[in-house]
């Protein structure tokens, strides 16, 4: 509504004051205070029932992936043994252009690795060999830049792969921990924001202690209108997905979450667990937790490992404790079952 003062605003104001003058006598309008109370009070059910959320559900089949499946979809690649005795994990990665329904009814022209956001969760053991046959199927140059230790030529920065081009990334998986990969072609913010990223998990040589549930969560978001600010936030791409479809876990079972923040544009993201605390292993590179908390913050590309058990059955929320992100989609639930 315009705030400029015009003859009409004057009329408006005048009219109401006139009403105010006459109203008490003629209309017996309630005094301003009581009318304000009246209008400020909402029916109880509206106030207690209000929850942010999207209307409808995205077409997961058309998207080609479902966030519920992504949680436990660890990709070990084609596993073989090299003559040296080293285990080889071989992957085929294709960068493509794809329209993804990022919220019910909203199509986003994304760039993807293997048609999904986040890309495949690469998982190997420390010391194993990783080989990725990369094909760029888009009209723009792309690359894969891995976090971890590897030779300069395998860093995916100075060797952008042209449209239609190929590149083979090969290196030893080290050190163990929770890592990530993403395209590193400039302008970087755009190449990441459009969907070229994924989790990269390296298990310790002896493995982590056994856990009943291992879940990968990539915190991301989407800038729909290209104003360099995210309009939607999520874990594994689809806003409110785990709010509608809670993640089922068993009471007292050890839950291990590999948490990666790739969120573009916003400086910081966070993870808060309800009615519980977790042990936090920053970057997952130590077997000893650094903190016992219910809330951690991560900058872009920061990541870590969370371990917790639920003592009581029931439904528990987890979400970004930047409330704005939570209400724009980064909200989910654990359903703890006996």
């Amino acid at each position, binding site marked *: *509504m*315009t*705030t*400029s*003062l*015009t*003859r*009409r*605003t*004057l*009329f*408006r*104001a*005048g*009219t*109401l*004051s*006139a*009403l*105010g*003058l*006459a*109203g008490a006598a*003629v*209309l017996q*309008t309630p005094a301003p205070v009581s009318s*304000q109370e*009246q*209008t*400020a*009070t*909402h*029916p109880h*059910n*509206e*106030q207690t*029932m*209000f*929850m*942010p*959320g*999207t*209307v409808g559900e995205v077409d997961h089949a058309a998207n080609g992936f479902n966030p519920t499946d992504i949680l436990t979809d660890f990709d070990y690649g084609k596993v073989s043994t090299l003559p040296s005795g080293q285990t080889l994990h071989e992957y085929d990665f294709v960068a493509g252009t794809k329209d993804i329904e990022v*919220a*019910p*009814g*909203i*199509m*986003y022209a994304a760039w993807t690795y293997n048609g999904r956001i986040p890309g495949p969760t690469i998982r190997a053991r420390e010391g194993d060999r990783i080989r990725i046959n990369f094909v760029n199927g888009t009209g723009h140059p792309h690359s894969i830049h891995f976090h971890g230790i590897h030779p300069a030529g395998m860093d995916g920065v100075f060797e952008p792969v042209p449209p239609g081009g190929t590149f083979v990334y090969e290196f030893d998986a080290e050190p163990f921990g929770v890592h990530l990969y993403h395209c590193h072609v400039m302008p970087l913010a755009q190449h990441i924001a459009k969907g070229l990223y994924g989790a990269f998990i390296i298990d310790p040589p002896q493995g982590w202690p056994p856990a009943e549930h291992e879940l990968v969560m990539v915190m991301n978001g989407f800038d*729909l*209108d290209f104003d360099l600010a995210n*309009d*939607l936030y999520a874990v594994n791409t689809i*806003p*409110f997905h785990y709010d509608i479809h809670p993640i089922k876990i068993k009471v007292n079972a050890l839950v291990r979450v590999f948490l990666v923040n790739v969120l573009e544009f916003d400086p910081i993201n966070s993870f808060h667990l309800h009615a519980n605390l977790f042990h936090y292993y920053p970057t997952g590179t130590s077997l000893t937790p650094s903190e016992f908390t219910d809330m951690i913050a991560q900058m872009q590309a920061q990541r870590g490992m969370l371990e917790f058990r639920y003592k009581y059955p029931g439904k528990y929320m987890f979400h970004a404790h930047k409330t*704005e992100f939570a*209400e*724009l*989609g980064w909200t989910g639930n654990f359903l703890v079952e006996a």
Partner: protein
Amino acid sequence: MTTTTTTTKPNPLSTLALLILPVLLLAGVIGLFLYTSGAGLNVQSAAPIESLSFERTILQPGVIEFRIRNTSPQEINIAQININDGIVRYTIDPGHTVPRLGRAVIKVPYPWVQSEAYEVAIFSSNSVAFTTAIDVASETKVADRSTLLSFTLIGLYVGVLPVFLGLFWFPALRRLGPRWMMFLMAITAGLLIYLGIDAVNEALETSIGLGGPFQGVGLIGLGVVVTFMLLDAIARRQVSVGRSEADQRLTVAYMIATGIGLHNLGEGLAIGAAYSVGAATLGTFLVIGFILQNITEGLGIIAPVLRDRPTLSSLAWMGLIGGVPAVVGAWVGGLTYSQPLAVLFLAIGAGAVFEVVYEIGKLIQRDAAKRPMPLTIFAGVTVGMLLLYVTGLLIK
């Protein structure tokens, strides 16, 4: 002689055929254009062009309702809604797909808080965001007996009361000499010019929110010109009937009343709408200024007939014609506000006011022909415009 053939009446059928021929050719060209998808022109836009206008936002306890209109070249799909950085659940009637120029009602259960501000973004399927804002949240008046009474009161204060108050000057003013009467007529012209300019400005401002297809400026032009021409035609018919000058002056007075009435209809619409959405503030000081400004409307109506003896009933009628449309406008604006209609009525009001200025101009010219007093006219118009400007300065 060959001239005889030219005078024979042409066959009406062949005339019809000749009229239709270009239309058929045109249809052929359009068909070719569609069939060849652009006939050599690249008519595919890089991205869908979408626009949407928010016609009305209604706040009820626990619910925010948006009445939207699709003003894009094609249908639009409403996907998600964001209020104050939160994705909210909603219902949309009749459906998510809104046809071109179609309307839809979106209801969002939302625990809004009195007097707070809200930013709203509606996302289409093509990820286009349409934004609006609720500057000060307050419950929208719904149509019941007490609000109808409120709107009636609004109309009374905007239109009827000031106009009648102005009419009460009649006995005093008719004692004035011809120079003063001329001065008053010129003042009226000045007042009306100011009102007309103001109405055009209002219409232009309101038209900003209209979607492209409604062509706000074109609509204003249509309203102003058609109203002006219509009133002008009516006035000329009256004159050609050949009545006395006193009768003609009475006609002008009625026309001023009509012009002011149409103007007040537009004002009533806008005020009713503003009141119903709570975009209003209170202030006793403002009421006084408000009455000061609008009392001049009644003054304007009686100016042409000061030297005559209009009946009490015609004075009453003029007051009603000038004032009551404000009540009607307030009802319509408050209960069923439509932005295109508001723009149109503001433009009609402006056209009416300008035509009335033209009529007064003719009266002044006629009197001035008998006894020239150019400085009186100049001073009158100036005072008329300044009167509204200065009262505006004091109260805005």
